[in-house]
């Protein structure tokens, strides 16, 4: 199932430009540099679990080299997990199925300075397949084994160091799978609340209306660590309006009228 959330991004002439992962039912996250030639609002051909869909580029986190695409109909999103040191991993998305699949071990998690300048929580990986040049793998999901129950731990971003040679060719970095939730406005609680409140507002207007109130979680503005965010949220999560989920009384109304025997 987890494999089905892996995405392949294609250019207008159907050339592979990178990988992606279905983070929620409607949103694909990828490496921003895969889409360096695209504009916000552009349509991108995507293949998810082999199925073609058209994604729309909706948000970038430029400093953190991540981008978010929206797809028009929901598909089952990825199961995620935290990476632990020593986990075995694999990355199924690649340019051609004949290219080698990446796999290896997790070295650990660390606060990592991206080439683009931002700092994020990253997973450091070593690969067993040393192919020197990892173009075409960017943006794809990093899954933790076991294969029958894979969970995504990150989004492949870059190899180390990417500037100048000689390269340390078997060390890769992936953004931790929880990072997009910290970095993208569209995934913030404030955005969700304004979505809940928008009364059938035309989406484009809705965006401009709500964006002003969202500076707190604006991309790249907030470099608080995900751990602190989790602690904050949990500590203050009082019971608030957690109304219970009452069992539904069966709703089956008398839809089918008596069609029986009239003779």
């Amino acid at each position, binding site marked *: 199932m987890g494999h089905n959330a892996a995405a392949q991004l294609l250019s207008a002439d159907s050339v592979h430009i990178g990988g992606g992962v279905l983070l929620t039912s409607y949103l694909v996250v990828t490496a921003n540099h895969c889409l360096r030639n695209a504009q916000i609002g552009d349509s991108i051909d995507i293949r998810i679990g082999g199925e073609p869909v058209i994604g729309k580029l909706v948000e970038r986190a430029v400093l953190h080299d991540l981008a978010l695409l929206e797809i028009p109909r929901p598909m089952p999103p990825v199961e995620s997990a935290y990476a632990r040191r020593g986990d075995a991993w694999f990355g199924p998305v690649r340019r051609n199925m004949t290219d080698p699949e990446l796999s290896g071990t997790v070295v650990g998690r660390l606060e990592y300075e991206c080439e683009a300048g931002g700092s994020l929580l990253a997973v450091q990986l070593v690969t067993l397949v040393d192919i020197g040049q990892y173009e075409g793998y960017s943006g794809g999901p990093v899954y933790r084994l076991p294969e029958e129950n894979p969970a995504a731990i990150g989004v492949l971003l870059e190899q180390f160091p990417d500037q100048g040679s000689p390269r340390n060719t078997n060390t890769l970095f992936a953004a931790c799978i929880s990072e997009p939730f910290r970095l993208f406005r569209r995934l913030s609680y404030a955005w969700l609340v304004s979505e809940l409140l928008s009364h059938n507002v035309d989406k484009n207007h809705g965006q401009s209306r709500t964006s002003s109130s969202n500076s707190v979680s604006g991309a790249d503005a907030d470099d608080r660590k995900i751990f602190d965010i989790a602690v904050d949220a949990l500590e203050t999560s009082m019971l608030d309006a957690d109304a219970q989920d009452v069992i539904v009384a069966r709703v089956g109304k008398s839809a089918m009228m008596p069609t*029986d025997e009239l003779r």
Partner: protein
Amino acid sequence: MSALEEEQFETLHELLRRCYVDCRRSFYGEHGDVYESSLVSVMEALNNLGEVQPTAEIFSRIRRLVTALDVLGEGRHGDSLVDLLRHVRAANVDRVDLLGFAGVRHVRRGNHRRAEDMFVESIEAARASGDRDAIAKAQANLIAYKAKWSILSDESLEEEATSTRPEVQLRLVAARFNLALTRGDIDAMNEAFKEIAAIAQSATTDADAPSEQFSRALAFSLITCFNALTGIQGSQYPGGNLAKVVDVLAQREKTVFGPNGPEGLRSKVTNVIYEFRSSLKNERLEALAAAVDSLRALSTFAFLEFGPESPESVLLACNAAVGDLEVARRRGDLVQLRMASRALEQVARAARTRLGSEHLIAMTATSNAATAAFDIARATRDVGDLQVAEEMLTIGLVGKATYSPLALILRRQLLKCQSIMSGDGEFRGGAGSIAVLAPAAEEPGIDSEFYDAAFVATLIGSDRPAVLSRRDEIAQTYQAIGRLADAVALLEANSADYERLLGPEHPDTLSSRNSLANAYRDLGRHEDAIQIYEANLADRERLLGPEHPDTLSSRNNIAVAYWDGGRLVDAVGLFEVNLADCERLLGPEHPDTLSSRNNLANAYWDFGRYTDAIQIYEANLADRERLLGPEHPDTLSSRNNLAGSYRAIGRYAEAVRLFEANLAMYQQLFGPDHIATVRSREKLSQARSGQPAVPDS
């Protein structure tokens, strides 16, 4: 503050800070369990405080540390820290916060009994402090807790529980919502929901952006309140894109808190139940089956994580059982339906044992189980099924007082059930019913409340959708006992109110119009009926799609109405289309398909296409004998139809054989004097004497 104390606090501060940082390092997986030794120092320092009373700042740091341990997945260390805190001296206001925090944490960790103690103590501490915000918060916590786990609550908010802070306001309104929920007061729930939306609105338009935590609380409040409202009144979310928000929220919680911790699980519960709800309405069977699978998977997980007695586990198990039942109902599979009903009954019993029989979850599960048993009994009229239904309904009526709309339905069902058992009448409704309907309302022992004009009048005055559906039920009963004009009056009012309250395109509005048309048809007002049916079919094709079961049912209804009104050509054409759709979409053996086939045969017959009709009757009888059994009312009807056709074309010997078989069964089922038996006997003797067909009405 003495110099000694100051020094002590400074040390404690530093220890707490270091321990938190160590937690973070451990979380990033770089340094193993590095926090453990600094945690030991913190505990020692707290133990050594003696009579010294720490500052609010220190308490807040401790709370933060406990939460950090939880995020780390080391809740047991958090537990020890919280236990330790209870022996530390604290000012009342600090104690309120501390106990509230501990309670919420216990809930999160599935430790409900201890949670309630904490909340109660917290209220005592708040009253002792006299701080209004503190009282408001503490009370809101207890109420929210009870409501979340559906514990019927006698609590109420104190008059002075008010606040100017939006965070506290939200909590208070949420508490009011929850109180209304346990009391079944839908108006008050809607009112509170609106207030929460208003708080959220002003927070998002405020110059200062709301904090992340407050936004999170707002998002969850809006969704959970709305979920509860959907469950009760089937409303649709008034604002933006709910499904997308729920989706992002669930993935966010799961990913940020880790997928298997209590917090991740909790958001999964909300999400899965939301999906289940949506799939119950207007969706295909596969979607429903998938939602039920998720429910069951999560139910197992909750069982392991929180234990069998936690409300989470019970709630999920109940919903999964209800889901199975709905799947069986839509498939029309009687065997599966019986099994699902038994399973639901067991789950309901477990819910009563584990949560108490007054618990809302247990009550709802019990009444669902009772209704399911009743539905089956009504369809089969099997004595065993009827007894099970009667027993379940009786259990369901215990403790009804606090949830009267539910009790009303159960009471009516119990009444019907007993009425069928005594052989007085069959409540199938509509003109197609094969049996004579006893004037049930005049029978002794009938629940007069149900037919009481004054009672009905109070319902008519109300604007609650939940009340409207009660009126539907009453109208159906009127129809069943032959008070057709009363039924029409009620349904006319109802359909207008549905339109006004829910809008002209709401599925419930369409259903109510359909019920009205059915009643017109029963009264012989064919043109009025056809007019509504036609509009309804167009609406459903547009809103639900041409293949939705409700759309099929609408098409069938029009065809029946055409046929009633003598428009045979139109009727035959439509019946043919509908049968083809039923066969394709529901399968050739679905009960609705069999009914549809029978309807087509009836129309063929009246059209003079005797051979076609007889061919279908023969196939239908064989199918029903095989699928429903030889004594099922539908099978009896089918046999009757075929026998009547044989007699009409002069095949008397075959007619006699079938009428004999039917008569034996009527005698056994209803006794020798029942009207159905008497009629059957008449038919048999007509066939024996070789009399040609006399069309029954």
